[in-house]
């Protein structure tokens, strides 16, 4: 059977269904969540309690709470009781403030074996809520591939078998959008969540959340990328989720004070219109605006994070990507996003793989993808990056993990740890485009060495040691993963605060908790351990809040109001913090202030830490990081920045002229590792945790999350 709209429509076979009356939204909440058990074909509503709203707020908070109830300390990612929970949060779906359409996804990860969360654009989360559901819980495993369809217009949820014989996520999204829409105009009312064959064949599968772009007349996709959520999705035999909602207005959340939201929204729309072109240029370049800056400031990961810049970096500069992206077109992944950073390359002709010769719309590349699939592999060809980006998305594999993992493989190859025989003939030297693209296809299709690569770094390290006698210490130093998650694409080795930003992050080294490099390394604004600890308290808590609400981080500080730089706490962008307080109060009718905003996050953040603890992680030993993230592992790496490092050693009382580079690497390492230990001490103290990284009972009590099952977990570790 070929993939066509007609075949999809006629092959639909309903396995289970539930009719319902969509709950009206009140102050940002529907008050109901949707539970689906795929093993039993059970679909049922649950009530969202007032306590849930008060303690967990929504979004990621709801996801963590439902997952906590679903699993036991023994549950593994591929056990039926593991859940994927998707939730938008109370602010999610407002149209007046940029970046307000995010879905938060929570599950047990196949790569970390602990809690994973991901923040993703596209229309699914808001449409899910407006269809009557504050959250969607997916538990159990289906026997056959299934599609879950939520029709918010008619009030019906169906679990269906549909013939979708493709492993290409972009086709699944397109075909389901076509099949479920009644007309071209109707397509914007559909959002699809799907993944591709890479999620069947690797542990780093992602989920694509779609939105319809009426100008391009194309289905676009945003990614819940980190930690293998797509792999869990396919393990449950989910092929896709489809939601339909056609009643969008600017007031679906039934906000208490529309004027307050409108005022904050118009203010920031004007800021973006007036200043974006001279600040971050998000509307022209998206997050790829960082490419030139990162290369200039020695922060762009080059060749597995060994180096921070490269002379060929100019070939993949911001300007190059601007020239590739279609300009002057609305590119918001949710309605009303004036930041409009979801750039796309139109009519891109693919040169390799199953879609060779076809012209496609490629979403991005965003900064992370350009660095991950380019400079970190020693590749400086923008068209290669765009093609790799397309295939990662349609195979359904995380660009960041793919990038960091491939960089690790390349360094292993260059060091003779693996060879051509092991890789099936692929010469995986840095810069080898052909070999890198072939390995990407092998991962996506489950062939050859791709099956090993798809295990991701932590398991590959074990495999290389066991099978090929690799030196485990060296692999630990250069394998850029912590907690089992691959690092995202910033060089942290010259910023102690950012080492903590990555290493202390709850889910693993992703930059969404803290990005402190400029504050720390470039502007020297947080010189003491206490300063760094304060930053590593405030910013992770503040950024956690976006995930509770259904918000995007970018409009917070990728645009700044006039005069912000002159303010004492410019890094916090105080006016925008007030905007967030206002829109939360405007939607919910509550009366929080900026301090309560942080407390909302602290409750969820500490709960997540305890949840990690419950699953056998979440302590000091789990916050350790590979030395590549802290300093120069090799002589060559040291010598690439000899002047800087020699200067630092002089400040520490050493005489670099009288030392060999090996000796300098050793003492530098000793110093930096000590600094990281001291940083952990300071941060744990600031967060109200023990010196082993466990939240203290008084901390939990002060936050009101000292319920018996939480205390039970923690007290065993105090």
């Amino acid at each position: 059977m070929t993939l066509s709209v007609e075949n999809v429509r006629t092959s639909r076979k309903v396995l289970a269904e539930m009719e319902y009356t969509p709950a009206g939204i009140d102050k940002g909440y529907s008050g109901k969540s949707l539970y689906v058990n795929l093993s039993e074909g059970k679909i049922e509503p649950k009530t969202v309690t007032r306590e849930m709203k008060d303690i967990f707020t929504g979004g990621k908070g709801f996801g963590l709470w439902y997952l906590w109830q679903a699993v036991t300390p023994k549950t593994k990612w591929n056990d039926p009781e593991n859940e994927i929970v998707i939730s938008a949060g109370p602010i999610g779906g407002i149209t007046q403030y940029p970046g307000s359409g995010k879905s938060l996804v929570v599950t047990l990860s196949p790569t970390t074996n602990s809690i994973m969360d991901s923040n993703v654009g596209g229309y699914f989360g808001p449409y899910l809520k407006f269809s009557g559901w504050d959250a969607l819980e997916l538990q159990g495993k289906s026997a056959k591939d299934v599609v879950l369809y939520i029709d918010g217009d008619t009030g019906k949820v169906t679990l269906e078998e549909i013939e979708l014989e493709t492993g290409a996520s972009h086709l699944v999204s397109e075909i389901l959008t076509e099949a479920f829409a009644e007309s071209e105009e109707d397509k914007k009312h559909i959002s699809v969540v799907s993944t591709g064959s890479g999620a069947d064949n690797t542990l780093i599968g992602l989920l694509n959340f779609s939105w319809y772009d009426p100008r391009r007349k194309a289905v676009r996709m945003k990614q819940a990328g980190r930690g293998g959520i797509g792999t869990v999705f396919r393990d449950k035999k989910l092929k896709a989720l489809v939601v339909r909602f056609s009643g969008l207005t600017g007031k679906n959340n039934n906000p208490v004070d529309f004027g307050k939201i409108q005022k904050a929204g118009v203010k920031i729309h004007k800021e973006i219109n007036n200043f974006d072109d001279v600040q971050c240029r998000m509307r022209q370049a998206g997050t790829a605006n960082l490419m030139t800056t990162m290369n200039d400031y020695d922060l762009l990961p080059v060749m597995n994070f060994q180096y921070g810049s490269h002379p060929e970096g100019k070939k993949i500069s911001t300007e190059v990507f601007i020239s590739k992206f279609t300009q002057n077109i609305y590119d918001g992944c949710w309605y009303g996003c004036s930041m409009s950073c979801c750039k796309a390359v139109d009519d891109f002709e693919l040169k390799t793989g199953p879609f060779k010769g076809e012209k496609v719309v490629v979403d991005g590349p965003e900064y992370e993808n350009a660095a991950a699939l380019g400079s970190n592999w020693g590749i400086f060809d923008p068209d290669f990056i765009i093609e790799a980006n397309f295939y990662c998305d349609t195979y359904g594999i995380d660009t960041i993990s793919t990038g960091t993992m491939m960089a690790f493989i390349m360094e292993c190859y260059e060091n003779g740890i693996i060879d051509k025989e092991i890789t099936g003939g692929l010469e995986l030297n840095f810069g080898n485009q052909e070999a890198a693209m072939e390995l990407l296809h092998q991962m996506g299709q489950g062939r050859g060495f791709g099956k090993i690569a798809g295990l991701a770094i932590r398991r590959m390290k074990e495999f290389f040691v066991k099978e090929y006698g690799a030196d485990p210490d060296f692999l630990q130093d250069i394998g850029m993963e912590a907690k089992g998650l691959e690092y995202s694409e910033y060089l942290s080795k010259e910023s102690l605060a950012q080492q903590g930003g990555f290493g202390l992050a709850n889910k693993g080294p992703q930059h969404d908790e803290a990005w402190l490099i400029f504050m720390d390394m470039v502007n020297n604004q947080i010189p003491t351990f206490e300063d760094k600890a304060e930053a590593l308290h405030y910013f992770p808590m503040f950024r956690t809040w976006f995930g509770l609400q259904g918000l995007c981080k970018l409009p917070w500080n990728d645009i700044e109001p006039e005069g912000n730089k002159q303010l004492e706490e410019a890094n916090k962008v105080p006016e925008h913090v007030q905007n967030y307080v206002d829109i939360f109060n405007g939607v919910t009718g509550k009366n929080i202030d900026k301090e309560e905003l942080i407390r909302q996050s602290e409750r969820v953040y500490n709960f997540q830490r305890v949840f990690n603890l419950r699953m056998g992680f979440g302590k000091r030993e789990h916050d350790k990081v590979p030395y590549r993230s802290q300093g120069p592992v090799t002589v060559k790496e040291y010598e690439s920045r000899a002047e800087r490092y020699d200067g630092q050693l002089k400040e520490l009382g050493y005489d670099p002229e009288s030392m060999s580079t090996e000796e300098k690497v050793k003492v530098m390492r000793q110093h930096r590792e000590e600094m990281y230990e001291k940083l952990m001490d300071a941060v744990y103290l600031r967060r109200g945790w023990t010196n082993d990284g466990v939240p203290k009972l008084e901390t939990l009590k002060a936050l009101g999350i000292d319920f018996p099952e939480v205390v039970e977990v923690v007290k065993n570790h105090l």
Partner: protein
Amino acid sequence: MKIVGKNESECILCGTCESICSEHYFKEDNREKSRIQVSEIDEDPGVDINVCNQCGDCIDACPVLALSRAKSGIVILNRKKCISCFNCVGACPTDSMFFREDEDNPYKCIACARCTKECPTEAIFMEEAEL
């Protein structure tokens, strides 16, 4: 296309244009709801007349294609399509896309010419402009 032209030095701040506009479009005499806004300013000539010049920058900012040019060239908002994001307000280079807390949708001058017909001093008038 014909747009509303202005000669601010002739304006006597009588507010006739604003009353006519708000009465026609909002059925109330409320100058704050007018699609043409006249105000006294310190700089010469002492008056600012804010009215859409139909440049169309707002069209590109609309996520749902609710803004478009009519056959006449005038930029119009389809309120049935509008989802109240107010992106267009932010995108307007002359601040001539207006909004109010008690209105779900933004609003702008559509060059209907009602105000120009009643202006006692010809401070506003219809004039030809190129697209």
